[in-house]
């Protein structure tokens, strides 16, 4: 039996769906904070099967969508400094101030290379010793340890032409900011499976203890998602909140301690700027002093430029779950995946793009 296929089993899914329907008492608003969940919930059709009283909100779960205009401006400025920019493909079309993106920078002569792994960027640097390669470090706890591991390798091998612009962000502090925000109405949080693979259960405990928020670490198959929703609803019905690990086959309660060690060896926690959410304390990662030779912002003296916000884009409110994408006046008019105004429309995992593609 293929274990993974079993988690798509329609019979089991319908069974859970029935239980959801019978347990649901009142409107239930759940937020997921993982782009993969966003896509999975739309793609699997779960969204259309759920009772209308269950409201799905996509929070700040896509690293591309939460990358701030000022960060985009910073890497666009770096691309003009005769460096080789290595980036995940996700960033290529993200519009920054004035609508400019890396693709346009490339057309103007910047050298931009898409890589699949930070390791590929390091190899690129080693193969081209006369060029300076800057890797754009975006991503949450899932990605940050991979980048940290590569920076460690670069130090060990004394590679002098490899640098990282770190824009990494941490999920729990953002959840704290959301949970503390009185404006936001969320009854339960579907916690991101792959981030949790790294950080485990502990960093979320405050959600239950301090904010009484039902929170479930969930996988990405239909059965995983439905079951996580059911657990959240039952917690709410019982007026209690616990953080549940409902993705045990991939997430251990203590997380991946080795990956976290590597991450904290190389990076230290600092405040970070989130698109739409502003500065969140202790929610980002910067390079430690021992690794400052690899810090692109220091080496190339690249601060975060002051920029004007993109007018009309409501990504911020979408990411907080305050409005749904089709409430944005630009949605599907001036802003489409082919010509995106904001980052939520660019990334395939962004709420606006998912809405555009799968809207019912």
């Amino acid at each position, binding site marked *: 039996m293929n274990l993974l296929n079993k988690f798509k089993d329609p019979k*089991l899914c319908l069974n859970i769906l029935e239980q959801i329907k019978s347990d649901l008492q009142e409107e239930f608003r759940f937020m997921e904070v*993982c782009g993969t969940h966003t896509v999975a919930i739309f793609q699997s059709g779960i969204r259309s099967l759920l009772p209308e009283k269950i409201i799905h909100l996509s929070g700040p779960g896509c690293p591309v969508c939460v990358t701030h205009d000022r960060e985009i401006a910073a890497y666009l400025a770096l691309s003009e400094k005769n460096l080789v920019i290595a980036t*995940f493909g996700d960033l290529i079309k993200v519009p920054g101030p004035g609508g400019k993106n890396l693709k346009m920078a490339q057309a103007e002569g910047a050298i931009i290379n898409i890589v699949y792994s930070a390791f590929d960027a390091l190899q690129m640097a080693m193969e081209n010793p006369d060029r300076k390669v800057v890797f754009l470090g975006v991503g949450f706890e899932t990605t940050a*340890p*991979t980048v940290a591991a590569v920076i460690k390798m670069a130090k060990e091998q004394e590679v002098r032409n490899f640098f990282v612009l770190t824009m990494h962000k941490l999920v729990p502090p953002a959840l704290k900011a959301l949970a503390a925000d009185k404006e936001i109405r969320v009854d339960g949080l579907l916690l991101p499976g*792959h981030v949790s*693979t790294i950080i485990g259960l502990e960093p979320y405990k405050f959600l239950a203890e301090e904010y009484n928020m039902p929170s479930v670490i969930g996988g990405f198959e239909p059965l995983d998602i439905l079951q996580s929703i059911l657990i959240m609803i*039952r917690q709410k019905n019982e007026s209690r909140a616990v953080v549940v690990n409902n993705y045990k*086959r991939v997430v251990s309660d203590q997380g991946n301690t080795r990956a976290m060690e590597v991450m904290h060896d190389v990076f230290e926690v600092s405040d970070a700027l989130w698109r739409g959410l502003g500065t969140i304390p202790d929610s980002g990662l910067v390079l430690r002093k021992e690794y400052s030779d690899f810090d692109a912002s220091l080496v190339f003296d690249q601060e975060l430029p002051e920029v004007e916000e993109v007018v009309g884009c409501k990504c911020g409110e979408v990411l907080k779950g305050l409005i749904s994408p089709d409430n944005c006046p630009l949605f599907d008019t001036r802003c489409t995946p082919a010509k995106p105004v904001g980052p939520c429309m660019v*990334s395939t995992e962004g709420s606006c793009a998912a809405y555009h593609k799968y809207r019912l």
Partner: protein
Amino acid sequence: MCLAIPMEIKSIEDNVARVEVGGVKSQVRLDIIDEPAEVGDFVIVHAGFALRRIDRVEGLETLKLFQEGLGLELIK
């Protein structure tokens, strides 16, 4: 962007594993996986690195609970 997919390890050499899923072949680094992975294991792969071994026993256990209609028991 945090997309991570399960792939099967076909061979391991030093810190690099050859992995495969549905005919797609790739190479992943094992520098940050928390427990030693072996040929035949499924691992969660993200950005060129294996993050974790998938625990078959836990997976089967979860399913069994479902099939017995004991979903609630998963709440601990």
